[in-house]
């Protein structure tokens, strides 16, 4: 599946890697978790009400639609959290 977002600028930053389950995702330093994930794929999570995938909405910390889980169980709002090299997320269903 192709990524939802398209990178247009600021490509000279340091490459980093995060994982989601056993999948490795290449990103750049300064990418939010939302940016890193949606450049690589089409969604962030499945709605807990069974109405399908979700990929965030407001990107400014208001709608709360982009929460993802770290492998250690902590939950993070993907649009306001910067991706860090080596960050390990739960697999995205």
């Amino acid at each position, binding site marked *: 599946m192709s990524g*939802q*977002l*398209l*990178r*247009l*600028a*600021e*490509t*000279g*930053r*340091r490459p980093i890697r995060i994982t989601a389950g056993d999948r490795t995702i290449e990103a*750049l*330093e*300064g*990418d*939010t978790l939302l*940016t890193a994930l949606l*450049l690589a794929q*089409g*969604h*962030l999570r499945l*709605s807990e*009400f*069974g*109405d*399908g*995938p*979700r*990929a*965030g*909405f*407001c*990107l*400014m*910390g*208001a*709608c*709360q*639609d982009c*929460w993802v889980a770290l492998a250690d169980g*902590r*939950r993070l*709002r993907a*649009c*306001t959290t*910067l991706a860090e090299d080596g960050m390990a997320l739960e697999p995205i269903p």
Partner: protein
Amino acid sequence: MSVVVVGGGPAGVRAVQCLLAHGLRPVWIDEAPRTGGQIYRRPPPSFHRPPKALYGFEAGKAMALQAAGDAAAAAADYRPQTLAWDVSDGVVHLAGPGGSEALAYDGLILATGAMDRIIPLPGWTLPGVFTLGGAQVALKAQGCAIGRHCILLGTGPLLYLLAYQYAKAGAGIAAVLDTAPGEARFRALPKLLAQPATLAKGLHYTVWLRARGVPLWEGIRPLEILGQTRAEGIRFRDRTGAEHRISGDAVAMGFGLKPETQLADLAGCAFGFDEASRQFLPLTDGEGRARGTAGVYLAGDGAGIAGADAAELAGEQAALTLLADQGMAVSSARRREIAARLARIGRFRQGLEAAFPFPAELARRLPDAALLCRCEAVTAGALRATVEKRAQEINRAKAFCRVGMGRCQGRLCAGAAAEILAAARGVELSEVGRLRGQPPVKPLPVALL
């Protein structure tokens, strides 16, 4: 005296700067890592685009505001990445990198800003659908477009500004779809002329977009965002009623802005129904004092949408009013000058409301099967069904069907929900009331509570 300022945007920066200039050192709460707010939001430190590329015509203002913000942050008790999640009995409750804290205040300035005003549509929860403001954040703060063929939908100045910024950055725009009819803009011209420079910028964006062949539609009515597991396009009616489909892999939508009023609500501010914008707003006395509660001041878009220039003035105004209330000497000439400039912007604002009217009927006609509340997956039909259970007002309807009960606290759906309930009951919008705020205003890590 202990003063707390909430918000790091234009209003918060100018409020803190003014307090510092009068010898006070406020505690300053900002959800972001650095000052600037949403409008002058800064990318992470590893980004290098120049201000002109990020802020366009507003680059000068952005740099000035950010420089003032940096200086004020160094002098004040600045708390970045911190959420003010409740206000009660003269105490602000905070959660930040250092944990939680309760701060008693003598004076509280709320400069909480705004977000996109949303009308749910069939398909609006599909991946690839974002707010106009969100699409702008993606570009400004992350250097990304929300898709390869973007459909920009809604109404208001941000619709055209975003289209311009996206096109300039090389993003693909499939169409710009405005629900406002073009003639509304002509009728609004006399009032828009109160701010000729701002009007000229707005006209420039549309002319520039047209010259580059970006398809601009006005007077449209969106019917549905198409797609099964992600956005694939949009179905809409043009102004003659003819139906069209446009393909695209991303949609940005927004119908103007709405203030973030949750903290004002919890602080006990009185609210009144504003006919022009069709929503309840916190009431102020015109000098920044909130009505209904002592020691609370409101500034910027969080008190009612007036834009960034007005927010800078209103932030300073609220600080001067607070200082005067505390018996300190402040310049009455400066206070009069601010009031006069805010009045001029207010006339322009009325022009914008007329030029880009909020399409309330879109919400009122949302099909029963469509998701209204995306947090709790409540349909428009489920809300309409509460009328049979005698839900007279929106908080009662929320108790019946969970609309607005989710993580976003109704930020996205409450306005549309009120329109739907009022229409289903056949009463005026003001009669169904407004959703009451609940702490925490945003989700907190459980460990902090």
